[in-house]
């Protein structure tokens, strides 16, 4: 348990250190320099934060919109060719994204999608969509569509059926898959690096260049900013991650 939290300790200390030479266990001089720079108006951090947020939110929204109907089809129905469809949906989780991104780069360049936000969102959909569909499929596998029929017989329209019957039932699944989608997109490094082409600088790209520059205080402060949304999301969704009906159980059933 302690080991799990250990890597966060030096991050916290470094982010407020000014001088911290070997072999001091805690910094010998403290300073808010790193935090001041990070939130300063001329730092690259705020634009990167904006890019990261826009890309992650757009990816999450699109993946959920396309993931709900696909998850419903996979979880609620049995049809010919379903195992092929399941295999196709799983494939991007198992096959590393490297080959895909390198291969598709040339097409993105030709159609003006390389080095743009929409282009980066499009490639982020590749690793995100399978998780959303899988989680939604496991939610729909425990869903009883007869309630919808009853609502319809009472005169509810398609919008009302979705709003009052389906949505409350699948909300935990939407929250968990939204968490996964956001976090995967938020953490994505390689796909953004290749398709963003150095024009779309997100937080992970900036963090990497800070880490390579050797400014430990800045690297630590940026790392802490980078994990902020992750922690907020986790606090919001923690109760859906474990428990008897945890939506994440769907991941145990590849």
């Amino acid at each position, binding site marked *: 348990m302690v080991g799990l939290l250990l890597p966060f300790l030096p991050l916290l200390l470094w982010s407020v250190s000014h001088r911290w030479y070997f*072999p001091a*266990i805690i910094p010998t001089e403290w300073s808010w320099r790193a935090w001041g720079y990070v939130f300063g108006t001329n730092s690259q951090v705020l634009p990167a934060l904006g890019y990261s947020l826009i890309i992650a939110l757009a990816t999450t929204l699109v993946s959920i919109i396309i993931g709900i109907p696909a998850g419903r089809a996979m979880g609620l129905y049995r049809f010919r060719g379903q195992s092929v469809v399941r295999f196709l949906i799983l494939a991007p989780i198992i096959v590393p994204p490297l080959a895909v991104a390198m291969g598709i780069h040339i097409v993105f360049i030709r159609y003006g999608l390389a080095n743009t936000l929409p282009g980066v969102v499009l490639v982020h959909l590749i690793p995100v969509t399978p998780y959303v569909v899988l989680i939604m499929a496991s939610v729909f596998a425990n869903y009883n569509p007869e309630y919808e029929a009853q609502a319809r017989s009472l005169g509810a329209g398609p919008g009302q059926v979705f709003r009052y019957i389906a949505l409350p039932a699948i909300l935990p699944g939407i929250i968990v898959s939204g968490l996964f989608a956001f976090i995967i997109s938020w953490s994505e490094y390689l796909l953004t690096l290749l398709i963003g082409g150095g024009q779309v600088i997100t937080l992970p790209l900036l963090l990497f260049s800070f880490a390579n520059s050797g400014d430990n205080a800045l690297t630590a402060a940026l*790392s802490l900013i980078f994990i902020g949304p992750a922690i907020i999301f986790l606090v919001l969704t923690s109760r859906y991650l474990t428990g008897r009906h945890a939506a994440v159980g769907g991941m145990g059933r590849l």
Partner: protein
Amino acid sequence: MLFGQDIRVAKLPANKPKAQPQAWGDRLKLILMLGPALAVILFLFMGGLSLALVQSLGYLPFIGRTELSFEAYRTILSREEFYRSLLLSLWISLVSTGLATGLAVGAALALRQQFRGRRWATFIFQLNIPIPHLVGAVGILFLFSQSGFMARLAYLGQLIEAPGDFPALVFDAYAIGIILEYVWKSTCFIGIIVLAVMQSVGEDYEQAAQTLGANRWQRFRYVLLPLIMPGILSASILVFAFTFGAFEVPLLLGQRYPSALPVLAYRYYTDVDLNFRSEAMAVSVIISALVMMLIFVYIRLSRRISR
């Protein structure tokens, strides 16, 4: 299901049979529901993969090359660098996946018990699931580099006299820093999935076995383990595939030579000499093919063991 037996067999009231659409209207509805998601998979994923394959065979019209050949593969396979990178990547993935799986099953067993502070323990366990690998790698760097936190503790304990005495755990030949980062992240990932599967199985079967005189080990080995095996299998497959193809952690924590396979592919790809493009594609196609092959072998092996 694709891998292993369906875990839902364990649930007592069986799900009612699934709707089996027969009419054309139903089929059309299914196609429309699956369409957008499949478009992402077919056009972006499969499209990208096929383009990588074609370019690895030397089809690079933008530099005026259109004839197909295996030359890129022949070139790579004749370099020592490739084999060293391959061994390194295999070592990293196998060790990380093995350690993380073992630790995760142990942790899930512990978190399943009732104890004070379990809620907090579970929360801490979930905590690093949303943490990006890059931040984990920075944390490992600050902890285990030769002037890092651990080295300072070792100095305090009079185990070492100078930073250079501390064993090289990052940028090292055995990729210990990379493995530490992967184990740190993956233990929680596998653990949460296995815990969810354990909770959906419940404890009824073990209690039945206990009534029949099974001891703790027998209850785990012959009752619980076969029931949670599909979950363990899927989660560790995801971790293996991820660690074999991941790029940023070995880029930050790895030594320059030999580098992990994905880092090698990226170096070729960004080389100013465009002739390296085909070789970059070939390395990444080999990575994809190896992942699929190894996962196939792994599934066959663990099915035999779990029987």
